[in-house]
């Protein structure tokens, strides 16, 4: 069950197996292992087989497209017409959208098969997937450890072989951090590259959808389908989407890779540091030029992020009021009671904490000191990167400061949890694309190498990752599934 998307494409094209067969294989694996991993909130077995059957007919009639018959899992943050979209929350446990998110539409248009909807931190708020109404997700490499978050279900599903690839979203690291902790490849594109329509918002100016897969090559295939301007999302950008797969053949001799000294400072686990250093050595061997750079405002990225993202989320989550959809408390006595109890019952602890913090940051008398200040520093963080990209083509460093931590280890210490995103968050603030690729192991657990690209430079980023994967085998290692 460790096929890549490109292997599945070839297998389907050569009629080595049918879409129904491969889909059935995944559904069987899900039945067997999902109880332990809990990476799916919904498994859409009937729909998947129906789609697979239709895909097989298309293949038979010679009308197959790139993803025809390829099974995929989608993060439960993307609205799916007729299939529950919970966003990991009790609030939306009963919610079935009457529309598809744009990326779901794109995948449907290519006749891909949806295996199910993956588990996630409630409303994408979390770095460990311990904040889901549907229970924690186990890291397939060690079931006592977290898979990372918020797209923990998608990363774990790919790592465990319960989906060949999956979609995710990344607001502060929610694709890259779980990709690192689960030993898979994930890319967060440039802000505006992938439509946010139908993707339930957390921090609207930071959220961006992207794929998880085993390889950079697969990520290129999936991003091709996900990316592009969408007139239903005013923040999506009118810019042609390059052919990502064809850009994978370039050698990286002379590629300038910057190492931000701030990413290798205090707080970085020694085991992780040594894996990253080895990976950098590998790039040297491939002919890349390694240059030390500085991103001096990195230290502000966490406080800035927690003001901006939380301010936005406090407003974005106001629509969950028990009036039109979602959870409504039993027999409200009046309007205020309806609001208070519906929201108190429907939201989990972390979501409530963030709504309160965000509300505070926007309130009269504090706006200038928090939100406005944060936006100003956000510009400085962006300028750090703009300066850096004058000198280098790609920036590299660790995705996370440590490997997957134990379940429950950080649940009582939100700040220590928030620090997990120290290397990933600044990209969202700047709107830059970033990837995490498997770079080795520390304490028997995967370590992710983060690669950061310039705006709309996903093609170069994917190729940089692909070249590493051509000369290493970390990405094809899989956990033993009991």
């Amino acid at each position, binding site marked *: 069950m460790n096929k890549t998307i490109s292997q599945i494409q070839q297998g389907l094209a050569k009629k080595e197996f049918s879409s129904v067969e491969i889909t059935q294989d995944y559904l069987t694996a899900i039945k067997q292992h999902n109880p332990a991993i809990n990476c799916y909130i919904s498994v859409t077995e009937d729909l998947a087989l129906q789609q697979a059957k239709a895909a097989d007919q298309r293949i038979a009639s010679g009308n197959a497209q790139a993803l025809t018959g390829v099974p995929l899992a989608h993060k439960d943050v993307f609205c799916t017409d007729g299939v529950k979209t919970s*966003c990991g929350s009790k609030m939306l446990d009963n919610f079935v959208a009457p529309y598809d998110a744009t990326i779901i539409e794109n995948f449907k248009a290519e006749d891909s098969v949806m295996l199910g909807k993956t588990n996630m931190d409630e409303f994408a708020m979390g770095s460990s997937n311990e904040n889901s109404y549907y229970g924690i997700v186990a890291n397939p490499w060690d079931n006592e450890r977290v898979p990372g978050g918020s797209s923990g279900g998608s990363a774990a599903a790919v790592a465990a072989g319960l989906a060949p690839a999956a979609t995710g979203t990344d607001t502060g690291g929610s694709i890259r951090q779980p990709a690192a902790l689960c030993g898979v490849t994930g890319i967060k594109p440039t802000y505006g590259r992938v439509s946010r329509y139908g993707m339930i918002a957390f921090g609207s100016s930071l959220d961006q959808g992207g794929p998880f897969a085993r390889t950079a090559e697969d990520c290129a295939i999936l991003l091709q389908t996900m990316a592009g301007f969408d007139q239903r999302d005013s923040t999506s950008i009118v810019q042609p989407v390059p052919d990502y797969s064809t850009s994978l053949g370039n050698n990286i001799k002379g590629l300038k890779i910057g190492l931000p000294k701030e990413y290798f400072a205090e707080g970085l686990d020694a085991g992780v540091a040594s894996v990253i250093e080895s990976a950098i050595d590998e790039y040297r061997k491939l002919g890349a030029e390694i240059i030390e750079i500085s991103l001096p405002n990195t230290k502000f990225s966490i406080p800035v992020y927690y003001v901006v993202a939380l301010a936005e989320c406090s*407003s974005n989550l106001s629509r969950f009021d028990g009036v039109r959809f979602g959870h409504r408390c039993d027999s409200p006595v009046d309007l205020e009671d309806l609001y208070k109890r519906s929201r108190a019952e429907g939201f989990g602890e972390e979501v409530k904490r963030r709504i309160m913090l965000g509300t505070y940051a926007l309130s009269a008398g504090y706006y200038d000191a928090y939100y406005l200040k944060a936006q100003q520093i956000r510009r400085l963080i962006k300028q750090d990167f703009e300066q850096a990209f004058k000198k280098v083509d790609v920036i590299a460093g660790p995705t996370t400061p440590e490997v997957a931590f134990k379940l429950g280890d950080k649940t009582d210490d939100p700040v220590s949890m928030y620090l997990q995103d120290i290397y990933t968050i600044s990209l969202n603030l700047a709107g830059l694309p970033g990837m995490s690729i498997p770079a080795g192991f520390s304490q028997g657990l995967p370590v992710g190498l983060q690669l950061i690209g310039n705006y709309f430079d996903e093609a170069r980023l994917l190729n940089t990752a692909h070249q590493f994967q051509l000369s290493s085998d970390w990405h094809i290692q899989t956990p033993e599934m009991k």
Partner: protein
Amino acid sequence: MAAWETVIGLEIHAQLATKSKIFSAASTAFGSEPNTQACAVDLGFPGVLPVLNAEVVNMAIKFGVAIDAKITPVSVFARKNYFYPDLPKGYQISQFELPIVGQGDLSISLEDGQSKIVGVTRAHLEEDAGKSLHEEFTDQTGIDLNRAGTPLLEIVSEPDMRSAKEAVAYARKIHTLVQYLEICDGNMQEGSFRCDANVSVRPMGEEKLGTRAEIKNINSFRFLERAINFEVERQIDLIEDGGKVAQETRLYDSDKDETRSMRSKEEANDYRYFPDPDLLPVAVTDDDIERIRASLPELPEQKRQRYISDLGLSDYNAELLTGSRDIADYFEQALAKAPTLSSQIANWILGNLTGALNKADLDIKDSPISAVMLIELIDRIADNTISGKIAKQVFDAMWQGEGSADAIIEAQGLKQITDSGAIEAIIDEVIAANPDQVEQFRAGKEKVLGFFVGQIMKQSKGKANPGKVNQLLRDKLK
């Protein structure tokens, strides 16, 4: 007793006359079944996003250009956060720090014939909320989201008005202007045009503004005047009794003709405005502004000036004719057919036609007598086919739907008698029948002439040409 000065500022919500909503493709048509014109965006469903309707930006710029306002090169949509069941997202998308239309001004005509400049602080775009329906349900509230997302232009004035009458004059002027610009249908019953009035009083000569109360959602000019007058008196009484005006929101109850407290400043929401991250800033170039300026129709003020200087109408008539675009259009349609009869047309429109329309509670758009029909009637007076008096009779018949002026004149035999022989015959008859009055006239009693004219007109059923009657009568009586 101190003399008090009233200070009024108005916030006017003009619903922009677009076919679809400001951030979605749903229709804005009025009066549909509840919740049939609300799509996922209007309902605030998860994951959906607003997309700005470009037409509202054009409309806002039209307004801004028409009042000589500064158009903000980059304006920003912001979220105004508060919870209410008819506000689906839990925030209203509005503009806060950077409204699309900046400072402008408007000249209003006062009752004494003077004019006054009222400052317009700003005008910004925003979405309307839905409606809570309390009456149809017991122990429950219904929500109709058809109106949610309807585009509004909120026009905020400076506190420049000093009486309820001035406030009404300003509101009417804006009302006329937005209809001229075809950016708002101006329908106040349907809520397409509504006012909030900020009212305060201060001792005459005092610089500092008094504490203001805001009267919300007034939907007629009559109520606007009455609400302000009530509120001014209430505030003066309160202060003179040693009390203090509270800064609060009040509601005007037209049944009781009073304003009532809705909520105080302490209870007011902290709206936590911040730029909406789902929408890009709105960039307007000088070219956009010039293109829109060039497309503007003749504005009421320009029209008024032209009516006075080119057509020779009185100030008063020019003001009334340009008071609404529909009246001006009607006038100009008639004028196109008879360019030399401007004052006659004006008099007919502002006299008989307006009277009949008011009586029937009809808009000039729905007049049973069209401009083309009216000009036919006026032509018949001008060419002496009928007299002014008969014309009123023909007008009434036209109003009743009996046909065109010519058809009615023909059918009822109302054509004026101008033939000298026929008139002379009637005169002879009348003179013969009234020898006493003939004596009196010849004795120098000029007034008796009127008696004869009256008798002759009566005999002719009003059809004798009055000029001819006068001339011939004098000759005969000599």
